[in-house]
């Protein structure tokens, strides 16, 4: 695959993201030795430096091998770049001359590992550098670090202010690392989809990559916005945990009372669990039980409301969201209805346009269309109306509307006989011929209305209402 410049940029970003994602590990080492994390950002920079040094030396060696006609012996090829490990081994020590030996040893080992990882980077694609396994491992290691520090706090009985993380740098570095991870995953996915069928990269329109990057940025912004509500999220998590605890306690209480209803055991002569109150903490009072019952009632009420009115609430919410979205679109509204012509390539041309107008027109025409529900409503009004000659005409109108609902193509210019012909199949079981004849007599020949005719029309319409779903 011919490499483009952006592949090199993505690779550099992927390499830079590694220390960002393992920032909590670096932080833990620093706090573990120094009891404060003030030095962590500096250490992060050192780690980035050793990683890129390893990458630089690895790239240089790679370039030398490419230029040379004869390949080096295998041992030389393997060992030479690793000889550069002397830099972090000595350099890390020199940078931390005044520190404790243990701390220097930790930092030196870490720096050397990162250097050696950097040396391998020229041979790994950017997609494989930041793959999902690496991401999950960094999350897991972060939680392990938090646990280690919490454990150390407990063991050493140190106060809250020392031996604790500053969350802001951790979150910032993690967010940046995450953003790079998402970008790398997205672009490597595009490369994979192209390569798996051996498609040429030149055939991929350039704007696709750019648009994907924009979407990733959009998602990143969404993460940042949602993270700003972290307090609510934390409260929500606590609430859910509390709710779960309450449900478990309620189940426990339920089991406890059920056991109480059982008769005394004859063999042991012991009463079953009267003194045992499961899952209730020591010193719990009647107030706690009341609170638990109250919570359960509230939950039950919410569930009841949700089951009864859930759909309506959801529809109303969607409508509000749709209005908000339309407002946002109007506010931002760049070129929504403008036709844009774009020249695709030597082999094709593209024309891009918006379909909003077309969809709005479709919606308007759909809303103007008669629905079964509306027709039934009109029929109900018809049944309630007074018996007049007009009523028969209205009834005939409802009959024609029913035919259009059934898919018969009735035009405005059609005569009653033509409508009868078109809807012959549908009207056959409902004496359509007679109804059409009655209508014609009333409308064109101005004959007087007979009760029997009206009754027949009403009866047919009632049947149609019943049979139409």
């Amino acid at each position, binding site marked *: 695959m011919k490499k483009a410049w952006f592949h090199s940029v993505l690779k550099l970003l992927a390499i830079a993201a590694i220390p960002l994602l393992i920032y*909590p590990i670096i932080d833990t080492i620093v706090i573990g030795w120094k009891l404060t994390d003030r030095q962590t950002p500096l250490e992060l920079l050192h780690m980035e430096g050793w990683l890129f040094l390893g990458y630089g030396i690895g790239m240089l060696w790679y370039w030398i091998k490419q230029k040379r006609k004869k390949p080096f012996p295998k041992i030389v090829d393997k060992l030479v770049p690793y000889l550069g490990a002397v830099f972090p081994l000595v350099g890390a020590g020199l940078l931390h001359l005044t520190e404790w030996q243990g701390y220097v040893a930790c930092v030196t080992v870490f720096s050397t590992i990162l250097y050696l990882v950097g040396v391998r980077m020229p041979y790994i694609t950017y997609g494989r550098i930041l793959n999902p396994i690496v991401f999950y491992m960094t*999350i897991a290691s*972060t939680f392990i670090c*938090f646990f280690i520090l919490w454990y150390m706090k407990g063991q050493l009985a140190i106060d809250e202010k020392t031996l604790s993380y500053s*969350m802001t740098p*951790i*979150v910032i570095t*993690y*967010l940046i690392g*995450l953003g790079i991870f*998402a970008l790398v*995953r*997205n672009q*490597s*996915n*595009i490369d*994979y*989809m192209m390569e798996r*069928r051996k*498609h*040429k990269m*030149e*055939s*991929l*329109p350039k*704007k*696709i990559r750019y*648009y*994907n990057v924009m*979407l*990733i940025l959009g*998602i990143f912004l*969404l*993460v940042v916005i*949602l*993270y700003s509500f*972290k307090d609510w*999220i*934390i409260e929500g*998590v606590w609430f859910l945990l509390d709710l779960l605890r309450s449900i478990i306690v309620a189940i426990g209480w339920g089991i406890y009372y059920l056991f109480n209803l059982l008769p005394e055991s004859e063999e042991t002569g012991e009463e079953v669990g009267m003194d045992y109150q499961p899952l209730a903490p020591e010193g719990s009072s009647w107030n706690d039980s009341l609170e638990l019952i109250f919570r359960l009632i509230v939950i039950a009420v919410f569930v009841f409301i949700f089951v009864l009115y859930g759909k309506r609430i959801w529809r109303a919410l969607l409508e509000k969201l749709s209005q908000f*979205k339309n407002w946002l679109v109007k506010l931002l509204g760049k070129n*929504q209805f403008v036709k844009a012509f774009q020249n*695709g390539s*030597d*082999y*094709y*041309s*593209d*024309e*891009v*346009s*918006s*379909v*909003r107008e077309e*969809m709005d027109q479709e919606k308007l025409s759909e809303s103007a269309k008669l629905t079964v529900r509306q027709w039934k409503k009109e029929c109900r009004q018809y049944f309630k109306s007074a018996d007049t000659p007009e009523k028969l005409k209205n009834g005939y109108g409802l009959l024609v509307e029913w035919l259009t609902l059934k898919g018969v193509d009735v035009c405005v210019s059609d005569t009653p006989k033509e409508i009868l012909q078109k809807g012959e199949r549908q009207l056959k079981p409902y004496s359509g011929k007679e109804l059409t004849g009655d209508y014609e007599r009333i409308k064109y020949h101005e004959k007087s209305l007979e009760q029997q005719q009206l009754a027949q029309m009403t009866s047919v319409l009632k049947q149609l209402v019943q049979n139409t779903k």
Partner: protein
Amino acid sequence: MEFLALIIVVAAILILQSVLFKKMSFKHLTYHCELSRDEAEEGDQIELIETVVNKKWLPIPWLKSEITTSKWLDFAGAQSIVTDQSRFVPSFFMVKSYQKVQRKWKVTCLKRGVFGLQKIVLVSTDLLGGATLSHPAKVDSQIVVLPKSLELEEVFLSPKYLSGDTVVKRHLLEDPFYFAGVREYTERDPMNKIHWLATAKQQKIMVHQNDYTSRQSFAVILNMQSMPYEVGKTVFAENVENCIRVCASIFDRTIAGQVPVSLFANTSIDGENDVISTESWGEEHVMELKRILAHLPLNSTEPYGEFLNMIYDGVSSTDVILVSSYLSEEILEFMRNKRYSGIHVTLYLTGFISGEELPDDCEIYCLADHFREEGEPSDEKSMVS
């Protein structure tokens, strides 16, 4: 807890985007692919139009349509992959919310025949590669590519020039509708032929003079074998394709003169009957014949010699044109027999031939590129003894 909140937000968004794309990528997304014309000629440029409409808020960040069509519809150049009979073309789209993209590919029809879009598959993915989705698209577009006409005078030459007296067919009866002038009355002339005005003028009895006319019509007999003793599938396809183009050229020439023309071919389109068309004239009829030529498969149902014998009595046109890739004794025999019956017979040869193989008594035209003078080394034998 802050870190946990971050992880929860990230996990929720990742899962949501994956689920959304999985469920909604192909919903409210319409794809349509068609060729701009139903009919074209060899070498014509047409368009393949792809239309993708996304009628939802969710954008499609990457969409690929894998088009499989005949290799004889040339488009996409280096982007396409050509196999035995098919051409695979990937087409990449990026469709934003509520957007329509119409892509027009420039297509060249390389060869005559009936071609269509064989298969189209749509492939999409989510933003992070968690889900790959594919969906087949409906295809029902087809094009009939008609054979291209040749400039027969430029492409063909007649190595043997027939000179001297030519036998002309003389009719027994005069054409009563064709007046060539007036002449003096003879005893054999009927009274109704007297031209009274001319008689008054000349002061002697004058009569109408009618001339002899004959309505010209062509029968084109196409040979789908590229060499003698060929059974079934045609071996030298290009020679037979040239034969088909010659037929198309001849049909085109009959339009201006409104000359009736018919087509005979020793192959079958429906798998049952040989190709024998009706004799008619005009542009519509010629187009119909060209469509028949476009549908002709590259195989033969029987040897050309047998076919000529079979249709011998059925061919009653004034001019018979044989179009073949090779020359054989049966063809020459047919030509000579028809000539003796007073029918003008011409043969167009598209295969390799040498001067020594051509008889002197028959009108034969050879492809200039495939003719070698006497004594030149041969590339291909077309004459069967």
